[in-house]
């Protein structure tokens, strides 16, 4: 065709790092600690729930309600109502989407207009930028920066903070939304109440929508607490409305129940905002698959009964994964990588500055950031796959943050042992 084919909204967004690194990871004999998905089975109750959904009521093979399978929206409303301090109406305040990715896409399309500014906190899950651009919006970046650590001490994600003045300076009259991710991917930062209050007060002051991506909300370690910004109220005794009125809270069954392939996600929020997401939803996918939703509903019904008890998956999973995290932290240090201890999520980042100074000239394109070149070298020579953290930064800032790589520890024990073997070989090669 001679005519210009792709629509202009796709300009500059066709490249995807996952496709590139996914290909590299499919080489033989590598240990894949790159993409964030569990390589161990989901909990039995989840598999059973899906099997029920496909073998019982045959009408579950057909369309369900467009905005969410009723038992699912009902349980999400009652379960999350408690955490957000709200009475959540399953019909007005819940929208089921195709994964959290679908929730994010729907939110951006519904609310971001051409010329609107969207504040994105770096490092950011990579899709936020192209989604902003596809909606014609202008991303405005503000970085989390690490405070200096004591010698010999490991850095922690809690140490990475926003400069309040810098953050405030990013808000303008064109700011339509701010996207928050807590626990954060790739850093693993769990935003504290004070940090959330800072963000909240600025959103309130500038009349900005907060889109909060909380997919890792159950994966929180060391006794930290996940807090939903939508639950924040302003000041005691004032009549200021709380954050609920201007917040869209995104969740994921995939990350909650270790079933990323089911692609069931949701958004919780006020009707005044959700009605616009419903308009996009009914004109894009309209329905989400029924059986996955039925299975997720059953999983939540189970967890609601067990909530707070030691046998609850939401208690057991973070405990088990914290062990994985600690194992990985110890192992990575043995080769001179310096991990940043994450407070939450599936991931940790490691500082590779020592490698950057010892082997600065790794093969790669002229302006390719160091961390990308390091990852490719590591995959080829050490058989370990990670993701370069510059992927999670805006292009102008990549040079400042090109000395970190991200590892996923949401992996089976056997994968971590395979990692140890690779690291042992690496360590042996380092000895003079």
């Amino acid at each position, binding site marked *: 065709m001679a005519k210009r084919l792709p629509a202009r909204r796709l300009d500059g967004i066709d490249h995807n790092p996952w496709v590139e690194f996914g290909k590299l990871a499919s080489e033989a004999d590598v240990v894949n600690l790159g993409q964030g998905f569990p390589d161990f089975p989901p909990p039995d109750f989840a598999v059973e729930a899906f099997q029920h959904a496909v073998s019982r009521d045959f009408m579950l093979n057909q369309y369900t309600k467009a905005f969410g399978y009723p038992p699912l929206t009902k349980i999400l409303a009652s379960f999350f109502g408690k955490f957000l301090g709200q009475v959540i109406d399953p019909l007005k305040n819940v929208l089921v989407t195709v994964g959290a990715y679908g929730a994010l896409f729907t939110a951006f399309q519904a609310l971001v207009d051409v010329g609107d500014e969207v504040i994105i906190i770096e490092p950011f899950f990579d899709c936020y930028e192209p989604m902003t651009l596809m909606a014609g919006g202008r991303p405005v970046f503000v970085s989390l920066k690490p405070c200096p650590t004591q010698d010999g001490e490991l850095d922690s994600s809690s140490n990475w903070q926003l400069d309040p003045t810098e953050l405030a300076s990013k808000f303008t009259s064109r700011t339509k939304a701010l996207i928050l991710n807590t626990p954060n991917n790739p850093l693993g930062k769990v935003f*504290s109440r004070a940090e959330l209050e800072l963000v909240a007060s600025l959103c*309130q002051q500038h009349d900005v929508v907060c889109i909060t991506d909380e997919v890792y909300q159950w994966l929180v370690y060391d006794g930290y607490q996940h807090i939903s910004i939508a639950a924040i109220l302003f000041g005691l005794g004032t009549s200021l409305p709380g954050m609920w009125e201007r917040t869209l809270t995104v969740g994921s069954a995939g990350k909650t129940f*270790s079933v990323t*392939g089911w692609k069931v996600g949701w958004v919780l929020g006020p009707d005044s905002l959700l009605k616009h997401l419903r*308009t996009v939803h009914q004109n894009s996918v309209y329905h989400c698959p029924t059986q996955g939703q039925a299975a997720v509903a059953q999983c939540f019904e189970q967890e609601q009964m067990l909530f707070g008890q030691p046998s609850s998956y939401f208690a057991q999973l973070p405990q088990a994964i914290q062990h994985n995290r600690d194992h990985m932290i110890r192992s990575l240090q043995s080769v001179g990588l310096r991990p940043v201890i994450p407070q939450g999520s599936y991931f940790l980042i490691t500082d590779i500055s020592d490698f950057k100074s010892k082997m600065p000239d790794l093969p790669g394109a002229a302006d390719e950031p160091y961390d990308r070149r390091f990852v490719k070298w590591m995959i080829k020579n050490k058989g370990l796959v990670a993701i370069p953290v510059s992927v999670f930064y805006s292009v102008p800032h990549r040079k400042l943050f090109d000395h970190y790589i991200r590892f996923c520890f949401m992996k089976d024990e056997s994968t971590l042992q395979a990692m140890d073997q690779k690291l042992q070989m690496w360590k042996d090669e380092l000895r003079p």
Partner: protein
Amino acid sequence: MFLALGRLCTRGSRAKFLKTIYASKILGLSTSAKMSSKLKNAKRIEGLDKNVWIEFTKLAADPSVVNLGQGLPDISPPNYVKEELSKVAAIDSLNQYTRGFGHPSLVKALSCLYEKFYQNRINPDKEILVTVGAYGSLFNAIQGLIDEGDEVIVIVPFYDCYEPMVRMAGATPVFIPLRAKPVDGKKWSSSDWTLDPEELASKFNSKTKAIILNTPHNPLGKVFTNSELQVIADLCIKYDTLCISDEVYEWLVYTGNKHLKIATFPGMWERTVTIGSAGKTFSVTGWKEALAQAFWIDIKRMDDPECYFNSLPKELEVKRDRMVRLLESVGLTPIVPDGGYFIIADVSLLDADFSDMKDSSEPYDYKFVKWMTKNKKLSAIPVSAFCNAETKSQFEKFVRFCFIKKDSTLDAAEAIIKAWKRQAS
């Protein structure tokens, strides 16, 4: 009002900063008045919030209503299809992410299946995209290829989502109606509805980015013929236009008709996006997902009458013919569909009384369906829902019935229709 506090690394300083922000607010920078101004929708969805399905499925949700409205099979999908999903649920790795553009075994099955119809090979990695239902395909195709200011030709009646999807992409839908030319002595059929080639040609210009084709057609059931598709193909090539071809009902074609794929016409492969649906193929509309194994079972036996691609249309043709007789028996004039699982009928001869209905500005068929749902406990969908504002009046005497329903549902519909007939005589 902001103090220049520099980089803060302690909680204490931040708390002090927060107090400062609060103070400035309390001094009267009230934001609640501003709340209505920014927390609103993006322009791309302006006017797209209404949806006929939301409205009519609510009406039909009354369990005492026989629902022949939404295109939802209430028959069970074939057992082997259900079994495959069951088996798949037990495989651990299949609970996690797969390849972004489509599960490898599914795209392979699809390429094997469809290569039987195309002269060229189909590259499963580059020429197939798996989406969330055919709805998802349409959305992706339109978002990916249609720009603001483009024109997109839409044939009326049209599956209702085409118009809002085109508008959401900032483009202008250009409508052209199918026109009826019933042949004397012959039962009215969907093939009697055609596009006027000159009228169609007049809709194409240099701004036309695409035409959306739907064959077999919803709601009419029309199966576009070779010569009809050739007219469209010729225009697409002449004006360098894309063709988005919605072929979800491709297997549901009745005796005497053949589904043809416009992408197989010379010069069309490189300008056509062909959309299919597992939901419609295997009667599993709620899946919107990969069905590799089910496809393989049927690919291997395509000449076998047991193959679902052959057995389902046979089963449905019987139901279609039953519906035609039923509708005729009560004075409705149905248009016999050549494909798909819907049948439309002219309801004006029934002369229903709507005097007690509130909104008199609604089209005739909307009023009729609401009246019929309430008084006869039978639901359907008004065909003017598939029309743009200007053409609604051409189609407002028509109502759409879905017949992919189990026998007991059709029995219930028959009982209602017979009672209706008795009342009328």
